[in-house]
């Protein structure tokens, strides 16, 4: 299979597990759905239909698609604020996600959460959190609950490279290791903590080593290759589930857009971004693999494009026609009636 090693990311090459054509096609489709969803989010933001903070996932799609591919239905997921991709990968309805972005009643949080705050109990997606690093103890608590109940589930806790400098990450690592909690920590290292490059914000060579003091194993993964992510996730999830112990995956990835919609990303060169887009794009790489390794014909991709286009049309339509919440919604959902 094709293995491209990024000069910038310099990932470890892992042995990929066997993958079927149907599986890789599904990953391709899921990544493309996220890409198209985020492109439309950016457009709607530009049109003034989405407001506030909006952090796009474009470029990082292989991370969440590769991880979610190996999770079980009882497993729980939590992440920070760059969360649209995670929700789609958790099989949440694009209509409900887009309608939340536009602040409508049909959104997952009835228009009360916005881009950074969506949840689905049905899909075991626990948000959607806006305070950098706060989701890590929360997710460790979800892992604690899996162990307490003995339900065989694990919690996958996503964080960015910026979050790893928060003290509460290490408070959580300590308890997860001490109490043997089934927590899989995913560091989505896109190289920038907002506008501060990793060289300027993180001491030490590797973020996957940040658990060493607690005896938490870590691995580095090429996050621009969905198969590499999936292979690493398969082993990591198996380890966490079977040993009831935490593990860290540092997944080297890249976001093409700015930190949020208001960020022109002046802290990096156009050449750097172009290089990643042109040479390491996870969707193009999956497509190339499907063609070269599985002999998939070019025309086989158009039904996928068409399906996603229709999903997006429907989502955008719903997000614009679902009404804004009524004034009567203002004072609900503050407390549960006891």
């Amino acid at each position, binding site marked *: 299979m094709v293995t491209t090693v990024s000069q910038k990311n310099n990932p470890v090459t892992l042995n990929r597990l066997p993958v079927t054509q149907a599986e890789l096609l599904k990953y391709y489709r899921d990544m493309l759905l996220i890409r198209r969803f985020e492109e439309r989010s950016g457009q709607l933001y530009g049109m003034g239909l989405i407001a506030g903070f909006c952090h796009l996932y474009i470029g990082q799609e292989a991370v969440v698609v590769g991880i979610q591919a190996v999770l079980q239905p009882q497993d729980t997921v939590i992440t920070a604020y760059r969360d649209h991709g995670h929700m789609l990968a958790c099989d949440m309805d694009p209509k409900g996600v887009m309608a939340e972005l536009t602040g409508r009643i049909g959104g997952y949080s009835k228009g009360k959460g916005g881009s950074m705050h969506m949840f689905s109990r049905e899909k075991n997606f626990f948000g959607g959190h806006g305070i950098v690093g706060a989701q890590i*103890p929360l997710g460790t*608590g979800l892992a604690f*609950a899996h162990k307490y109940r003995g339900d065989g589930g694990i919690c996958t806790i996503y964080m960015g490279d910026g979050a790893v400098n928060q003290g509460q990450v290490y408070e959580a690592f300590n308890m997860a290791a001490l109490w043997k909690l089934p927590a899989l920590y995913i560091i989505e290292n896109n190289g920038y903590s907002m506008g501060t490059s990793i060289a300027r914000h993180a001491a030490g060579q590797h973020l996957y080593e940040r658990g060493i003091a607690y005896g938490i194993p870590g691995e580095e993964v090429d996050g621009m290759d969905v198969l590499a992510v999936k292979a690493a996730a398969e082993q990591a999830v198996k380890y966490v589930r079977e040993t009831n112990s935490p593990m860290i995956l540092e997944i080297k990835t890249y976001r093409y857009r700015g930190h949020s919609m208001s960020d022109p990303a002046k802290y990096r060169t156009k050449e750097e971004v172009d290089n990643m887009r042109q040479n390491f794009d996870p969707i193009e790489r999956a497509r190339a693999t499907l063609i070269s390794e599985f002999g998939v014909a070019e025309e086989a991709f158009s039904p996928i494009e068409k399906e996603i286009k229709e999903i997006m049309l429907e989502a955008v339509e719903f997000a614009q026609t679902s009404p804004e919440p009524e004034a009567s919604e203002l004072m609900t959902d503050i407390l549960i009636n006891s």
Partner: protein
Amino acid sequence: MTLETSTITVREALRDAMAEEMRKDPLVFIMGEEVAEYQGAYKVSQGLLEEFGAKRVIDTPITEHGFAGLGVGAAFAGLKPIVEFMTFNFGMQAIDQIINSAAKTLYMSGGQMGCPIVFRGPNGAAKRVGAQHSQCYASWYAHCPGLKVIAPYDARDAKGLLKAAIRDPNPVIFLENEMLYGQAFPALTEEDEVIPIGKARVVRSGKDVTITTFSLMVGVALQAAEQLATQGIDVEVIDLRTIRPLDEQTILDSVMKTNRLVTLEEGWGFAGIGSEISSLVMEKAFDYLDAPVKRVVGADVPMPYAESLVKLTIPQVEWVIDAIKQVCYR
């Protein structure tokens, strides 16, 4: 009957509340620093480890931000954690998780993510423990929608309200007081009495002036009321018991009867509970007031250490007597 069987301390009442709820509901567990093997830094969790085991009585590292967040996550998953802060002063490390995660997520999720958790521990000043260990958080937490805030005085309320807090599907801040832990109150009869959250209690009825207070200061108010009774001033003492949601009606009914109000709290006055009650009475019972509302509050300084200065910082019985005389024009 011996004295031991006819009284119960606040410490025992709190422990009994937790034990009874843990027997009833396997989803309830307690975590915090020294709650298990040490039996609680203030011995509030005495005996719980022995009865319920290490799965449900969990010693944490000293890591408030972390274990508060872990507790909130467990509550999102449907467990019912009791998170003990050795004192609420240390809970300030965890205040982001309490407010941003526990209090707000139900709203942010459009009602999906309930958070049935209790944060409890001693609040306010103990005896000469200095500025960082002597702070009242009532107004801090009461400020925030999405939280319930309870601050009981006697053993009966401590037990009944803690049981209600554990059963409540919302995040509850349960403010105890170290100075009250060892105080004995009449023994409780109803094993399973749950006291509703959000109801104040008139602990002494009177006709001349109302005083609202909570926690340790209820005792101070009662002492002031006894002394004033000998001087012909009949004081009505209201123990708020719950700070949020505030029992407005009990306060308003009393003020409409006595026409005079003094508020008393141990914490700082600025944006305090007394300010809130003062504003409430202005908005809803202004025409009933025969005198301006008077607040009695802690001095506006970090808590000093020297005994001479502490006495000038924490509200004293004499301060309350002076304030009541002022609003009674005596």
